[in-house]
């Protein structure tokens, strides 16, 4: 497996606040990397900086061998990086299928002429995009709510729509920010299975999670952040037993069975 995403020496300071400090990490193609850490550890900031939403104070990000540090956010899709958000960001006034089709934006080549005159080239392209979107929605079990307004859906389904949208651009790397937030245990288990299925489709996945069951269950490797620094990295078993990780979550204590939230 080769390295897909490489983060080198990433610093992000907001004035005096050190959100990220000398963070290095690799993501290999085909792997699922979990990112955990107490609240405020800098996990979402990490996503924000490596996707170009915030410029880093220092450091670089490489994707597929090319440097992408600070590239504008809208380029990500073309590069092959998709993302979901901690607080769901759907297009609330659009239907589910339209939400997903927006994800294909960079792949569809249209012209004003083609659109207004309904030229054959335009129509067949739209049709293909439509079926592709339907396939993804099917895969995620959302085929019944395809025409529903996305803001009308229950929370769990909205999460899935967000994932569907991110998948529609055929990403090589999928960044999921707390996908199981707000889910009950049953839904969380389904999510785990889903992420496993997604991996089979192709993309490498980086998951920020608080739900230990989920993240330990699906990750090949885990990175632990605390106060902006990477304090530990390894397989789930290794990380679970590392004292500094336990300390980060629970404070200085003797021993405990597992890091808790």
């Amino acid at each position, binding site marked *: 497996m080769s390295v897909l995403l490489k983060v080198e020496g990433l610093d992000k300071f907001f004035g005096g606040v050190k959100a990220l400090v000398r963070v290095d990490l690799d993501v290999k193609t085909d792997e699922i990397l979990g990112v955990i850490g107490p609240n405020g550890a800098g996990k979402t900031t990490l996503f924000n900086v490596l996707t170009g*939403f915030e410029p880093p104070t220092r450091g670089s990000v490489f994707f597929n061998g090319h440097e992408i540090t600070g590239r504008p956010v*809208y380029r990500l899709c073309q590069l092959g990086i998709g993302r979901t*958000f901690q607080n769901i*960001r759907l297009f609330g*006034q659009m239907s589910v*299928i339209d939400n997903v089709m*927006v994800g294909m934006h960079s792949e569809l080549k249209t012209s004003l002429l083609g*659109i207004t005159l309904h030229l054959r080239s335009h129509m067949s392209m*739209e049709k293909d995009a439509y079926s592709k979107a339907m396939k993804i929605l099917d895969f995620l079990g959302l085929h019944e709510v395809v025409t529903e307004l996305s803001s009308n859906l229950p929370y769990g389904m909205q999460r899935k729509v967000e994932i569907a949208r991110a998948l529609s651009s055929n990403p090589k790397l999928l960044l999921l920010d707390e996908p199981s937030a707000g889910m009950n245990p049953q839904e969380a288990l389904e999510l785990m299975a889903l992420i496993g299925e997604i991996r089979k489709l192709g993309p490498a996945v980086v998951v920020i999670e608080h739900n230990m069951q989920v993240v330990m269950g699906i990750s090949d490797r885990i990175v632990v952040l605390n106060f902006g620094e990477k304090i530990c990295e390894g397989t789930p078993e290794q990380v679970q037993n590392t004292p500094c990780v336990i300390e980060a979550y629970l404070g200085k204590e003797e021993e405990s069975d597992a890091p808790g939230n």
Partner: protein
Amino acid sequence: MQGSRFFFPKSLFFFIAALFIPLAITNDYHLRVVNMVVLYSIVALSINLIVGFSGQLDFGRSAFVGVGAYWSAIMMQRFGFPFLPAFLSAGMICALVGAGLGLLCRKSSFDYLTLITIGFNEMCRLIFLNWQSVTNGAMGLRKVPPPVIFGYVFDTNVRYFYLSLILLSLCYVSIRRITESKLGRAFQAIRDDPIAAAYSGISVPDYKVLNFAVGSFFTGIAGSAMVHYTQYASPYNYTLDESIYILQMVILGGLGSLPGSILGTSLLVIVPEISRTFYEYRLASVGLLMVFMMIWAPNGILGRQGVGEKVIGLARFLPVRRKVSQEKGKLP
């Protein structure tokens, strides 16, 4: 697109029905009102594209109507251009100006955009008013020539009705197709969540500019069509109050609903003609309408979850088939 096959019969039905209007309405003044409804509807559709679909609250649309009007009138009157080139060039000029304005505003937040469009409206109005040599200042342009297409002169209400109807239909179909395409989805994505839109590959500032340009094209040709009908262009017609009034037509019909724009326009053009009270207390009437609507019916009449849908929901008690969620997720 799947939607189209269902779309044609409905709108085609209205189109064909509309063809008979001049037969039903013989009073010349009434027909004139109808013509204004048709022409204003085109402006309303363009506003819907910009404000409704892309969420850019533009308070200066009337300026573009004016630009299109003055340009077209001057082209024909002073430079002797035939109608079609004047008409189309008016649209292109407005598209360019719209793109320019869009470029200025593309990184601006919501508030700035609104303020800048107000400023633009004011600037245009002042230019129309003061640039005596070109626009004839406060007197305005009179005796603007009527359209002549392939020798056929459109100088009666009936003839103009058919011209406007065809124009409206073409604009309606074009705008509808735009909203159902990748472009329309991008616009709506920008409206709903610009950050998520960027993450989906949309270069938000560029698309905002495109939205302004395309919308302004339609506004411009509407302005041109209007001025050759009224045969008069005056700087007092292209004011901020006008902009807000036309915007209100779109809001009444429902932002995001194209048929709604036509409905809203009809209501706000016809009602002042019918109701003396409405006309006399114009400001308060429109003001009250706006406040009440925002509190109780922000989605307008035909907008999603608007008044129309609520009424239809009540009709569930009648043996009438309830309108199911729009076909394949397309807007009404």
